[in-house]
């Protein structure tokens, strides 16, 4: 009933004392997923082949309501039904069963610049896009300068939008959208627009919108934003509401869930990788160091393609792994764990006073930490051909959550040339505990005092 552009209707409802902006009552949404693309006319008419399809339950009996003036965040993993819910509220799709009631004019920012035509100028597209979003032409005329000003595209406004960069395109889309000024705004991950300065402007607009008592419903994976902006958060999973309530509670619940999921994923992934490696492992590599199993036998014959390796080959690094305190091989570690990074070297020639080292880098290639036996003032002595050496680095994990790669090396005592250096031979997964951000752990004592 209350499509965009029917403001008076919404206001009447609000005056009558109903403070519910959106009410979702036991809504279920099933999608049909066709096995063949689209049934052809021939098939349908002649029923030559019954088209088969699967049903996908996107939302399962979901109920909640949002009051006027509330800012509500929808969070959940991909495929949990967040976007389906927004589309239902925006009337783009219809529920399979259940009811959705909307009091007030509603505008959905599911995509910025929807309906922009590349051949038309920015100015022409403003009018079309605004009309699509339900704005009257005289309102657009009045707000045109605001819209252009906000987008910071004054110089380009009479240029066809096909010449715009994607950032300019989004900026123009956002500028139109925020000037529609509905009672209820639906936002789907569209706040990450443009550069930092423009984003700050976008957030300010959203804040102003909130302050003026409008209702906002946001879908975002950015939990910081959600806990910042929202007065209420709904956590969806597999089409069901897992929990709803105060942002901090719900967000931390969701974080715990993601962490659990991430752990499982890493274990699965490493299990799969290990399987693959074991299949092609060379006989000699399946040995065990000091009676300890090596968690990941990074076999060089299969990693040869991806691993950058150099050195004379007088000594070869044959495997590497991560062990816990009890010398058990582990797939991942957590912040604060005591771990041992172990690698094994086989000498092919006699080498005098070699240097053993490691380097740990993050996914961007930043060196997080590196050390070697010389820096630790360890005299290594002479190794004979055929000697097998185990190098162990024991440390407490003070890495921020994420994946790090380890490059082990054996160098000659001139500290310049190498017997063997294998880039990114091994990776360490540190489970996210959300203690800090950045590269270094300063481990500060923090205090706040009030006079």
């Amino acid at each position, binding site marked *: 009933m209350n*499509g*965009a*552009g*029917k403001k008076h209707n919404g206001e009447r409802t609000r005056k009558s004392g109903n403070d519910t902006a959106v009410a979702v009552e036991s809504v279920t949404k099933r*999608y*049909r997923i066709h096995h063949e693309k*689209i*049934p*052809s*006319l*021939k098939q*349908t008419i002649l029923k030559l082949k019954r088209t088969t399809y699967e049903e996908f339950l996107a939302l399962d009996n979901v109920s909640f309501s949002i009051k006027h003036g509330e800012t509500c965040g929808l969070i959940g993993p991909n495929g949990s039904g967040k976007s389906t819910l927004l*589309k239902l509220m*925006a*009337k*783009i*799709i*219809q529920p399979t069963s259940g009811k959705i009631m909307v009091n007030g004019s509603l505008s*959905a920012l*599911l*995509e910025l610049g*929807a*309906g922009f*035509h590349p*051949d*038309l100028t920015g100015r*022409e597209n403003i*009018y*079309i896009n605004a*009309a*699509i*979003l*339900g704005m*009257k*032409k005289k309102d657009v005329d009045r707000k045109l300068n605001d819209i252009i000003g906000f987008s910071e595209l004054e110089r380009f406004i009479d240029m066809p939008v096909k010449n715009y960069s994607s950032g300019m395109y989004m900026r123009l889309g956002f500028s139109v959208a925020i000037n529609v000024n509905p009672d209820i705004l639906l936002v789907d991950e569209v706040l990450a627009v443009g550069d930092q300065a423009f984003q700050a402007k976008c957030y300010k607009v959203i804040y102003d919108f909130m302050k003026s008592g409008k209702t906002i419903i946001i879908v975002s994976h950015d939990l910081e934003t959600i806990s910042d902006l929202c007065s209420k958060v709904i956590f969806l999973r597999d089409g069901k509401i897992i929990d709803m309530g105060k942002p901090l509670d719900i967000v931390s619940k969701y974080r715990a869930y993601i962490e659990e999921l991430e752990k499982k994923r890493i274990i699965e992934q490493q299990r799969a990788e290990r399987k693959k490696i074991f299949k092609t492992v060379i006989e000699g590599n399946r040995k065990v160091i000091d009676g300890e199993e090596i968690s990941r036998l990074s076999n060089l014959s299969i990693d040869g393609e991806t691993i950058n390796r150099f050195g004379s080959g007088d000594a070869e690094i044959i495997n590497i792994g991560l062990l816990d305190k009890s010398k058990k091989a582990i797939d991942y570690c957590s912040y604060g764990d005591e771990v041992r990074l172990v690698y094994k070297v086989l000498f092919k020639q006699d080498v005098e006073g070699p240097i053993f080292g490691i380097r740990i880098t993050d996914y961007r290639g930043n060196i997080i930490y590196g050390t070697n036996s010389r820096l630790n003032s360890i005299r290594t002595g002479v190794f004979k051909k055929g000697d097998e050496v185990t190098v162990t680095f024991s440390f407490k994990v003070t890495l921020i959550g994420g994946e790090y790669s380890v490059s082990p090396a054996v160098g000659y005592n001139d500290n310049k040339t190498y017997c063997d250096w294998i880039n990114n031979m091994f990776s360490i997964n540190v489970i996210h505990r959300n203690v800090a951000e950045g590269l270094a752990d300063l481990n500060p004592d923090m205090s706040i005092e009030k006079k």
Partner: protein
Amino acid sequence: MFSGIKTLFSYRELLFSLTKKELKVKYRGSALGFLWSLLNPILTMLVYSFVFSIVLRAGIQEFAIFLICVLLPFNFLSNSVNYGTGSIIGNSNLVNKIYFPREIIPLSIVLANFFNFLLELAALFIVLGILRYPFYIYLYLLPIVIFIQFFLVVGMTLLVSALNVFFRDLQHLITIIMMVWFFGTPVIYPLSMVPERFQFIMKINPMTIYASYYRNIFYFVKYPEGAGFPSVTETLTALGITLLIFFLGYFVFKRLEPRFAEEI
């Protein structure tokens, strides 16, 4: 249906905006602009005139005018249907992201083509004036015929645009259907040339009746030997079939509309 019209009315600005966009996009970047849309019927007219007056010698006086005064209204129908068929799918980015009454999309196509049609008619008036056709005699009938044909065009366009979302091969089929319709309507030949026993079938096609009106209004005012408006029964039948197609198109569209966003 009534509430549908009311909603549509509240979205009229969007409808006009999209119609304007259709027209702008069509003529943007071409130096001749709107003249291109005149060129198409003129070229068609020249080709058919050559074939029928010089090769086949059909013996129709001023064949070009005979043809063009029905070709223009028929093009209004066929262009709307042809462009309208893929219009919902072609605007999937809108249908998937924003709510508005979906009939606005095919309607904007119809309106853009209607606008073209009117401009072409204006050009036709100039030509008729130069050639001294007394086209003003029955001119009062013209708005009525155009008005009724408009409903036929809207009904057909709504129907095919909605069905095409679910049966994509309609897109290919529709070109053939429109070709059959073109030859099944007395556009390039007079109805009197058709054997008596086929005339009955041809008159079920409302475009046959409208063609007869257009031709009487524009052409037969100068060459009255073939003149003769359709009978009241024939006219009412055409009107009935037109309304049938219009309501069928509207209700099929409204019935399928809620599923558009999921299917594209």
